[in-house]
């Protein structure tokens, strides 16, 4: 079995650390996937900055019919997390019943499996648990 270079290039390595992108022009943080474009000023010089992991749910939905990579985990919560460093990240909120989640709930990040890649490579990423 060989590793798909196309998939590896598209998804990148596992996200073992939680980070966002700091704009050198305006100083604002953008989500981690914005490598070349600041959400605030459109600046193109962004650098990695690690996040402490704490945040608050500002919005959420409950997924009952998940995409294939998440089958077996439904129902689960996906929320917008306002991080303490002032950046908004969408992420699953796990280990909690959907009825126990509400806007304003404090959460903290934790490392979890995100998906099993096309070639069996494991993609880890950060999900959130209720504090």
């Amino acid at each position, binding site marked *: 079995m060989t590793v798909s270079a196309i998939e590896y290039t598209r998804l990148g390595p596992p996200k*073992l*650390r939680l980070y966002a992108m700091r704009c050198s022009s305006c100083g604002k943080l953008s989500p981690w996937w914005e490598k070349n474009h600041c959400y605030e000023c459109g600046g193109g010089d962004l650098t990695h900055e690690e996040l*402490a992991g704490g945040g608050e749910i500002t919005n959420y939905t409950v997924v009952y019919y998940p995409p*294939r990579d998440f089958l*077996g*985990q439904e129902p689960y919560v996906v929320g917008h997390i306002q991080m303490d460093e002032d950046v908004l990240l969408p992420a699953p909120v*796990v280990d909690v019943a959907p009825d126990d989640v509400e806007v304003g709930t404090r959460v903290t990040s934790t490392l979890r*499996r*995100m998906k099993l890649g096309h070639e069996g490579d*494991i993609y880890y990423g950060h999900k959130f648990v209720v504090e």
Partner: protein
Amino acid sequence: MAQIVRYGAYLPRHRISVKEIQDFYGRPGRPRSRTLATPGLDEDPLTMAYEASVATIGHDGAELGALIVASQAPPFGLRKFSATLARALGVSGADHFDLGAHPAGLLDGLALADALVAAGRGPVLVVASDHLVAYEERVADMLSAGGAAAFLIGGDGGVAELGAERRASEEVFDVWRLGTEPEARYRLEVLFGTYGAVAKTALAALEEATGRPAGDYASVAASQPHPQTLRALGRLGVGKEQLAGTSFVGEIGNLGTASAGFALALALDAAEAGQHVLAFGYGGGEGIAREIEVTAATPDSGAAGMIEGQAISLSTYYRWTRGRQVEPH
């Protein structure tokens, strides 16, 4: 001797009733464990090791000299578990060591950490994390559950000191796996017999070294692959009260390599300064006994509060165990 500076533990929150599994497969007999601590589909020994490590050192591993990970069930082969965990923890500049294929790997890790600290290469984070999966009705024997424990070992400023260690071993096939087989083979009667035999030899050697018989320890933190193994310790002079706070296999199952670690976290949580704790690891015919002296008030890792968990249905458990077997899609 090196010291345990801090420690932490992690159990997945999901619990499946072993009686339900036995009823489903028509297997008679009293369940050997009430439930099994079952990792979710998005959990594996790496994520559980991360949780226990963060509970121990937080998100900052910058000062670590070394990281040792023990697991029988790393989520991937031919890759270095400890290095991936180090990257997840943000540990840089530390040496990483993998210890595998042995349920008493935590005790090996503590011995290695002891030597590294003595050589000036500490502090060392020793992590044991496991989920040795068994399928269908065999899980009623293997009691496959998951969990993790982590111990930060340093030269000073600790809450407990690592004392003498003694080992004993026999050449047996009790629990083993051939090549790339997905689950273990086992002979429970060999496991029970060998556990008792090597424990007897190792505890006698430890008593000779320390002058303290097994019955004199405040508590005993032992590998517990099956409730029957703890009865073997009872025949060696370990009292029920010494195991009362550290025995969990009858409640949440066999945590594999993490078993002795989780028991040690429970023992340290309940210990007072001046007391001695006996740590005993067993796996593959080898028994490792180590004395640990509590030197200061210990922080509460919250391990006891993790045992209860939350029930999941048999159908969810079945989907999850089958899900762990699926080929990449």
